[in-house]
């Protein structure tokens, strides 16, 4: 019995480690090769960047010669603002739907969640027309609006589930203490669902940061490119500055990594027990 269990545990670990290696391998190759000279990238793709192989030229061209910092900034702005809007409005909508009784509650809820089922890219042409008509083509605002719309349905769905589990007694207690509904939402309810906020934030931001589709279609202009689009500039018609491409990608990974680390710590620390009956 025990032998069988240990075997299973080992097998599971082997599988998991294998999967981790598989998932991290491309990342590893990219970061590794971003520190190597062009010759070494093609000569020894899997070799370490030591001695002759080492070259920081890729980073140099990315950070100083190009518009890369601008693209980076654009990505940060778009992702950051979209995330903030998704979290705020998603949580507020979910709170309204779960807390208050009003006519059309169910219908509005269904309508908002319907968005999960419809892939937003199906509406690209219509969206483009809308953006152009609004005069928002080639602006970061267009991207922000689209990403917020994209991220709201799932956010509302998840928030609803967790907000439902917040006991009504703590909200009633706050009402008796005289807090307005907005303050109850911000100061009592939200702190109790911090792990959910972190969760929604983490997997809302990744598709926004990585997206190539909408920046290409809605904001391909020089000043409004995001990082994913911006990497394209290193891929010329005849030559590709691989060192720079890999360096750009390596740098692009960082913010998402940092945000993820921050939020996952919040996720763990945010689990408060004991406020309501344990």
């Amino acid at each position, binding site marked *: 019995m025990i032998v069988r269990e240990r075997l299973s545990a080992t097998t599971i670990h082997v599988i998991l480690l294998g999967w981790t290696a598989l998932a991290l391998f491309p990342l590893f190759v990219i970061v590794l090769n971003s520190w190597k000279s062009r010759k070494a990238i093609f000569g020894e793709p899997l070799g370490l960047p030591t001695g002759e192989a080492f070259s920081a030229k890729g980073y140099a061209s990315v950070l100083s010669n190009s518009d890369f910092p601008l693209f980076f900034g654009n990505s940060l702005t778009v992702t950051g603002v979209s995330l903030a809007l998704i979290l705020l409005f998603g949580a507020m909508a979910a709170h309204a739907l779960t807390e208050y009784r009003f006519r059309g509650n169910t219908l509005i809820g269904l309508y908002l969640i319907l968005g999960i089922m419809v892939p937003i890219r199906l509406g690209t042409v219509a969206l483009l027309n809308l953006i152009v008509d609004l005069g928002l083509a080639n602006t970061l605002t267009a991207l922000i609006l689209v990403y917020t719309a994209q991220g709201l349905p799932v956010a509302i769905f998840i928030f609803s589930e967790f907000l439902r589990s917040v006991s009504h007694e703590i909200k009633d207690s706050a009402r008796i203490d005289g807090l307005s509904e907005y303050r109850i939402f911000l100061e009592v309810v939200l702190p109790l669902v911090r792990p959910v906020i972190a969760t929604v934030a983490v997997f809302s931001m990744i598709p926004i940061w990585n997206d190539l589709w909408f920046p290409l279609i809605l904001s391909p202009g020089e000043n409004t490119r995001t990082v994913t689009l911006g990497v394209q500039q290193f891929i010329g018609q005849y030559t590709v500055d691989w060192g720079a491409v890999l360096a750009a990608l390596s740098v692009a990974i960082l913010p998402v990594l940092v945000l993820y680390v921050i939020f996952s710590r919040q996720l763990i620390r945010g689990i*408060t027990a004991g406020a309501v009956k344990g």
Partner: protein
Amino acid sequence: MATLELADVRKAFGTTDVIHDVSLDVADGELVVFVGPSGCGKSTLLRMIAGLETLSGGAIRIGGDPVDHLPPSDRGIAMVFQSYALYPHKDVRGNLGFALKHAGVDRAEIKRRVNAAAEILGLDELMNRRPRELSGGQRQRVAIGRAIVREPRVFLFDEPLSNLDAALRVHMRVEILKLHQRLANTMVYVTHDQVEAMTLADRIVVFRAGRVEQVGTPLELYRAPTNRFVAGFIGSPAMNFLDARAVAGTVRLGEAPLCATTLADGPVTLGLRPEHLMRRGKGEPAGDGEATLEGTVQVFEHLGGEAFVHVELADGRTLVAKLDGEQAFRPGEPVTLGLRRERCHVFDERGERETALH
């Protein structure tokens, strides 16, 4: 004067009435307990007093002022919830002072009230702890403390002890009793536990399906329940109900008359409290004003000082008797139970108790 008046209060959810024309007057400083089975509307009524639910009809007055249209924070009430409802990201001191700080009370006054509440409830050592670092009983005391600092006219308790283990519940019951003696505030206490109701209340209001079944002091409800429902609800173990017949002015289980009645001939229900049944020796003549029942012991629950003995009567019906725990009982052993005639409760067909004789 913190009186509480409910006048023909009605509540409907959609088209269903859940509270039917409840009227009640609570005197200043009285501790009134709302008791009843789950779903009877007692918590809903409490929330209506608090202002967390609207009224569909009727009026509520606190200290003579109508409060129907006032938000909860303006009614002069404070509420203690079943699940404590403490703010998790604040420590005990923060939790106690939160409402006052929000209301703009000045710092010195907040400090004075918080310290006073902490002293009354024995929280002085816990002031810097977060709720998750407190035990259930401590959390409940903080919840009570939060209510005290508001210096309300009426305290509302919504099953505050239901989440505590049995021993702690007994302890906290006494604490609440002492609190009431010390503060002398008007209190409305909701519970489904009739023991809490009996021990805490100045008066008890028994609810069933949104209606008031009876209002009275614990002893009144114990001695003179108006109907079967109240009789069966108050007292533990519950009253024994036996189908009997009224024949020529007496109540009979079999042939022998047990007690007198003024009800017309027909089916009636006989109510006997377990604690009013006594063990009699076999063949021992019944005392004056006493009747006897013969049966055999089915099961008995031994509690040390007392025993709950389930007795099967000759006709197959069972009774529970609360007898002295010093005696021994064997399943299958024949036993004779004596009961004083005036302790019998007689209920008519509709479940109303006959009040004339007893």
